[in-house]
């Protein structure tokens, strides 16, 4: 999938903000998700990769979707993965979870279940103790029911 650059994200933010002024959409926008990520990164562009995201491609509903994250980085006193942020770019509250690690964690691995409002991207950002940032994302397709309302 094409990565959203910072400039794209800002442009998307502008259009999303315009959109929001004329709608009462309850769902977050990629811009709100980007703002959450900026809060976490301090505005630095994270490098792509080093994260494996285990999420289903398709989910029958969004209520309890299993998520497993592995950040591939050394966990030594000099450099370790200290924080991992999970963001969903279509949820009413895009920031889903934050995991904290220490060198004693051994591996930067976390698993949980998340709730998604619909088909959307789950974005993971990892931060190391020496200031490096990684990111990756995966789309989950949340099923549309057959019987209608």
């Amino acid at each position: 999938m094409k990565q959203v650059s910072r400039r794209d994200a800002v442009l998307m933010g502008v259009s999303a903000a315009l959109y929001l002024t004329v709608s009462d959409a309850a769902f977050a926008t990629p811009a709100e998700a980007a703002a959450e990520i900026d809060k976490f990164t301090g505005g630095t562009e994270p490098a792509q990769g080093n994260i494996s995201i285990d999420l289903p491609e398709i989910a029958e509903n969004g209520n309890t979707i299993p998520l497993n994250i592995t950040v591939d980085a050394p966990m030594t006193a000099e450099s370790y993965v200290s924080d991992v942020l999970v963001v969903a770019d279509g949820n009413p509250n895009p920031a889903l979870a934050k995991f904290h690690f220490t060198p004693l964690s051994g591996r930067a691995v976390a698993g949980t279940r998340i709730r998604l409002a619909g088909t959307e991207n789950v974005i993971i950002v990892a931060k190391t103790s020496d200031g490096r940032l990684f990111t990756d994302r995966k789309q989950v397709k949340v099923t549309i029911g057959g019987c209608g309302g």
Partner: protein
Amino acid sequence: MPRASILVAFLTAAGAAQMLAPVVSAQAPSQSSEPAPLATGDAAARPWKRYPGWPTRDTASFNTLADQKLSPPAPSAPRKLEGPVTGDPAIGAELVADRTRGGSCLACHVMGQAGNADLPGNVGPDLSEIGNAGLKDEELFNFVYDARVYHAETIMPPWGTNGLFSDAEIGHIVAFLKTLTKPAMFPTEVDDPSKRPPPVETRDNLDDLVNPGLWTVEKAQQLWTTRGPVGFSCASCHDRAEDHFKTWAASMPKWEPRLDKVLGVEEFVYRHAQVATGLSWLMQSSENTAMSVYLRFLADGQEIHVDVTSPGAKQAYERGKALAAAKVGQLNFSCLDCHNPERGGLHWIRGQWLGEQRGQYDHFPTWRTSQQDIWDIRKRFQWCNVAVWANELPPDAKEYGDLELYLAVANAGLKLNVPGIRH
């Protein structure tokens, strides 16, 4: 309690139970080979009220499992139209994806880029190039209005006859169908129903960190020793549940000649506990569901094996089989239309997989992640009825008993695995 006082208590209790409800037969306070005493009367709330949050439409003028003489009959011939069909293809494109019409066309058909080709179903043929098929307007109109005039056995809802779409709306849909001349392009592979992988259930449903429905087992263990107004608890007669119920639930549902109907675990629990303890655990109450899960949980791993040899059971099975094929609701679907692989079974309706009958019983009651609740099989029947726009029956309806017996036979040999966890 000393033996003598148990007996005295039981005699008093039996009297009390008689006053509470007519008792089919009385029994000493120990598990014996005599038929279990059962309360008569309703085993679920009356008048039955639909659950809050469920669709509220009243479809009383269409068939239900209890009355199949309500829906309008199929027309005998296609409608003759005066002049060409007029309609706006843009409106038609919206109507085919309108989820207030029972999922509409995309639930079953791929239709080019309609609905952005977002998770269409494949119960019916791919219509992406129907515009090249050389069909006349009148034929397209009649296919949508009531396809039974061309194929008596079709499972397609009679959208016009049953009032789901007006003539004008069908005109818009026809105008849209005529624009379909190119194969669909799917945004992702999972959008394509021919490539979408069917769901595989791999969760450990007996791990309480995985299955929130396991609260029922704990609750039932408490209820087991809860004394009712009669003075007895379940434990008074069945002291160690795990010794007495290793196989029982796998033989349910069962034809009950004293009540002239089929009883599933849930209805049995209500009727027996009502007489034996005085507790009123109506079907689908949390107590009833907890106890029904527990009794099946104790028999987990046992192969489902129900009796259909007695004349009453045989007739009930035949009735259940007929009910599974009965067309109900404004959408005019039978159970088999969606769950028999020769029809809709093992296909997609939009993004949802239609399972076949085998495999739809062994895990009930089941935790439903979509509902965040645990449902017994009767609630599942009720929901399916409402989903095809038919009025549901109360959970203790005899038709549901017959249908449950038929379903249990289709699941014979599968091992009970309760509580399940599913979408």
